[in-house]
């Protein structure tokens, strides 16, 4: 599903340049649940952003579902993001003036679906994350865990090939973290490929495979015994 070879990325910091990713190689198959582990500054978020086409690599190849992701125009990148990827962010990034239902329906709007179908689908995914009764609530009326579940519903609604989660539990307490991870496991069980970036080993252990980054290189890539929730 995802194939990455020799990925490099550096950031210009004034006159210095910071080499964040120093040649990353891996392959992720369909249906995997992969944790990308690493302490802050290891380059894991940068990697995820490149995978999510939110950022561009300096060097290297990135194949997503056998499509080469390179030199995309903003418009094509937007279309790919819309069709292939679902995002879950640490800070949820829900649009604060839209209610849960509208937030979930938003990626469908950009897919060009009709309003009625959008509503239907959004409700379906809200139901899946157990928030059907909260459809008309604004993000400010939801708890952290609920917000993240809305965000997951939103990411899933566009039926992406890959779900990318950047520290999905970073802003949550341990109980709600487990709830959210349980939801992610459930979605994975249904066959979705999921990448979770985290710095917590507990969270990583809830995945099926852990890729550990350190200073821009992969130091470990192994299957793990998934802790089922």
């Amino acid at each position: 599903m995802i194939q990455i070879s020799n990925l490099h990325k550096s950031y210009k910091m004034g006159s210095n340049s910071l080499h964040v990713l120093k040649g990353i190689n891996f392959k992720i198959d369909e249906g995997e649940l992969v944790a990308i582990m690493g302490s802050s500054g290891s380059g894991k978020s940068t990697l995820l952003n490149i995978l999510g086409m939110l950022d561009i690599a300096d060097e290297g190849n990135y194949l997503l579902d056998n499509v080469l992701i390179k030199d995309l125009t903003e418009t094509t990148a937007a279309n790919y993001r819309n069709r292939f990827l679902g995002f879950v962010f640490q800070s949820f990034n829900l649009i604060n003036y839209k209610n849960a239902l509208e937030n979930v329906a938003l990626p469908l709007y950009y897919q060009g679906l009709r309003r009625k179908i959008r509503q239907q689908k959004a409700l379906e995914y809200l139901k899946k994350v157990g928030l059907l009764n909260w459809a008309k609530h604004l993000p400010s009326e939801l708890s952290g865990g609920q917000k993240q579940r809305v965000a997951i519903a939103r990411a899933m609604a566009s039926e992406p090939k890959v779900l990318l989660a950047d520290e999905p539990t970073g802003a949550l307490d341990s109980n709600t973290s487990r709830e959210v991870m349980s939801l992610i496991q459930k979605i994975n069980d249904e066959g979705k490929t999921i990448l979770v970036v985290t710095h917590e080993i507990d969270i990583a252990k809830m995945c099926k495979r852990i890729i550990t980054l350190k200073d821009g290189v992969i130091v470990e890539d192994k299957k793990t015994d998934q802790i089922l929730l």
Partner: protein
Amino acid sequence: MFSRDQWQEIFETIRKNKLRTILSGFTVALGIFIFIILFGFGNGLKNSFEQFFLDDATNTLWLYPGVTSKAYQGFKDNRRIEFENSDLIDIQENFTFFLENITPRINRREVLSYKGQSNIYNIRAVAPDHQYVEKTIIMKGRFINQKDIDERTKNITIGRLVAQDIFKKEDPVGKYIEMGESAFKVVGVFQDKSGDREERLVYLPYTTRQLMEKNNDKIDQIIVSFKPELGYVGALAFEKQLGDFFKSKKVIDPTDKSGLYIRNTTERVRQNQRFASTLQIIVAFVGIGTLIAGIIGISNIMVFVVNERTKELGVRKALGATPISIVAMILNESIFITTLSGIFGLLTGIFMLSRMDDQLEQYFILDPYVDSLTALIATFLLIFFGAIAGYIPAKRAASIKPIVALRDE
């Protein structure tokens, strides 16, 4: 770009961001409203000004005979100069190039009586051209004509207020009024914008007046108007030549300042016109200033709005919004709001102006108005610049990498 779905999305955004909507809408509405009001007031001032100063014909020379102060060519000083009919003919013959209208004037006061009612009025004996010099407006009947002059008829044209005083609700035209020994037939009623005094006048053929006064040929004053295309310089040349001509004809020392007076309205007109154009410039300046202030206001708000939405735009991009759809969204939203509120401000302003009408006349603002073209252009400009002001930050926001936009707190 203008699908129903997109409008739904826009309305939703507008509805759910009331403060933002009201803020930008208010700026535009207020800008247009103030523009209309100020511009209207400016036009009102101009109206008053024109009513005060620009009523009489502006291209006239007034000739008054005086009393000489110097002895000259065998004549003693302190000689009273008089105008007579031949002077009119001389001017007509010698100054064809300059001349537009010419009329003598003989002023008297007399008692008019009708059906036992009497009143004293100023009677002006004039030629038909007087109508154009004084810009007299005929309401009924006619002014004194050339036939009246030639045949020395006993016809008069009376002012609106004279008619009101004497005839009450009767139609004065064709009625006879007694003046002195004889009866005069009213052939017309006139009005004059210069005010009440001018409408309490009676016009009489000057030849008739001369006949009444022992068939003399004396004239009190001569009013000539020159062709407007002569301009200021031409008017001065005309004045100079006319003065020289009369001084030589009446044998007045060329350096004598009191034998003959010529009043040239051109200088006053020039000043008035300068004042009017200054007024115009001030009005335009105020108008443009208001507009610019409005444009800056809406620009600031647009920059603020887009900045505030950076993160939202990042989220939208992560979810698959293309740069074009981001720009289109912001533009459609801002154009929609500015158009609606612009039209609202426009209508409110025009409504206020029409309500004021002449209520502010005491402050010299008469019939304030804004012509619809100016109003529409102003509204359009504000909407247009509002759109540009929205486009620039929208374009920038759309081209920010989503990752940067998402990091925005």
